């Protein structure tokens, strides 16, 4: 039986006014300019709800660049979906925010690039940090949940303590510190973004102490860099098991990075209904369950914990999307990851651009 999807990621547009070099969006941004219409997105949301989805995440690019975002939030909320906006926050003035909350927005996630303006604006490639702080304060005062996000990489890793201190000053109750994952632009920039082992160990100690100190006041979600662990990340909790992503042009992907897998063909909501794509498209079926697994996954006790790790990472690093994720210490290709860890270079990353 086909599993029930719980969560849909709506990548409304890949347009963005920032140029973060750690962006996971595909390098070929220009291939996604033919964006779905409002009516097509509404159909996607209603079809997702009919499939059993309970959460809609609006992301991008920068989703607030779509003028119809409030209408799409209203459609999702009206269908009983939990609505989450993932934004860099620079367009969230009072009116925009009140409009979104009035239409049923439940949760806002705003990302910062670093705790201090100079470093943050350098990473973003434009002057945005102060605007983001204003947006964070605005959201905090309203009746909507707020998460502050900061993607960690070598350029800002040493400032993790200051990120937590800033979150405290802003009275943030939920902080997400996620190490960069190497897809799209981030993959291109991996040697410049790869943290050092010292940075990773240092960060773990700081997060541990902050969690203890802030218990009950701030929840800190810390996502480990999988290049530094023994086991890979459980790919989407199982490929085609709980999550689906719709790209700006309507392609339906099992994971937001799946476009990286060169030989995987995606179906589009312009030509087939979402439910049919979820249930029977080749892209979703290929890595569902455990039957596709090679050794060492096939006979591994962790096969339904890790799900073989990340298919996209397996493809990017080995050329074979069905290989065991090289981030796993049991992978025959694990040496690729250990070599990449050491490849950290002092070079400046290349800014994202269309």
């Amino acid at each position: 039986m086909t599993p029930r999807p719980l969560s849909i990621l709506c990548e409304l547009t890949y347009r963005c006014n920032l140029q973060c070099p750690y962006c996971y969006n595909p390098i070929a941004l220009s291939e996604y300019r033919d964006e779905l219409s409002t009516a097509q997105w509404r159909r996607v949301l209603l079809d997702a709800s009919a499939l059993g989805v309970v959460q809609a995440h609006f992301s991008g690019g920068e989703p607030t660049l779509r003028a119809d975002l409030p209408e799409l939030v209203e459609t999702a909320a009206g269908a009983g979906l939990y609505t989450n906006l993932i934004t860099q926050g620079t367009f969230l003035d009072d009116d925009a925010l009140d409009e979104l909350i009035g239409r049923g927005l439940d949760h806002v996630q705003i990302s910062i690039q670093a705790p201090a303006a100079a470093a943050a604006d350098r990473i973003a490639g434009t002057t945005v940090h102060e605007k983001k702080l204003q947006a964070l304060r605005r959201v905090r005062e309203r009746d909507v949940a707020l998460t502050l996000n900061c993607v960690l990489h070598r350029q800002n890793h040493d400032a993790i303590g200051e990120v937590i201190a800033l979150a405290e000053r802003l009275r943030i109750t939920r902080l997400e510190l996620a190490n960069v994952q190497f897809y799209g632009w981030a993959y291109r920039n991996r040697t410049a973004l790869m943290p050092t082992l010292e940075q990773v160990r240092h960060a773990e100690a700081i997060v541990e102490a902050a969690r203890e100190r802030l218990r009950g006041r701030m929840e800190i979600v810390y996502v480990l860099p999988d290049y530094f662990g023994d086991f890979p990340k459980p790919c989407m909790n199982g490929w085609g098991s709980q999550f689906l992503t719709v790209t700006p042009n309507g392609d339906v992907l099992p994971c937001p990075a799946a476009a990286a897998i060169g030989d995987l063909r995606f179906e589009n909501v312009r030509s087939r209904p979402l439910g049919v794509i979820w249930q029977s498209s080749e892209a979703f079926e290929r890595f569902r369950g455990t039957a596709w697994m090679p050794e060492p996954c096939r006979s591994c006790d962790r096969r339904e914990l890790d799900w073989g790790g990340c298919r996209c990472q397996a493809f990017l690093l080995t050329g074979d999307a069905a290989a065991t994720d090289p981030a796993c210490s049991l992978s025959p290709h694990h040496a690729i990851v250990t070599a990449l860890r050491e490849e950290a270079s002092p070079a400046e990353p290349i800014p994202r651009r269309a």
Partner: protein
Amino acid sequence: MNDSPRFGKGVKLRRDPDGSTMLLVPEGALVLNGVAAVALELVDGTHSMAQIVEAVVDRFEVAPERAREDLQTLFGRLTQRGFLQ
């Protein structure tokens, strides 16, 4: 924990057409058992903890003492995570 608990920001209850109930929270969904569903249905800032316990005792075969303890544990955990206030 408040004596008349209410949900934290961005936390809401969802009843599925199939009869199951979930607590939707920022970046997560908790599937509730029958007791938790009945108890959390009454979380609205007006029902007291005592009333919530009473509703559970009325609906399920459970001693009041046991229900009170279990619900305090559950609500304490949810409060700790910011889902109740």
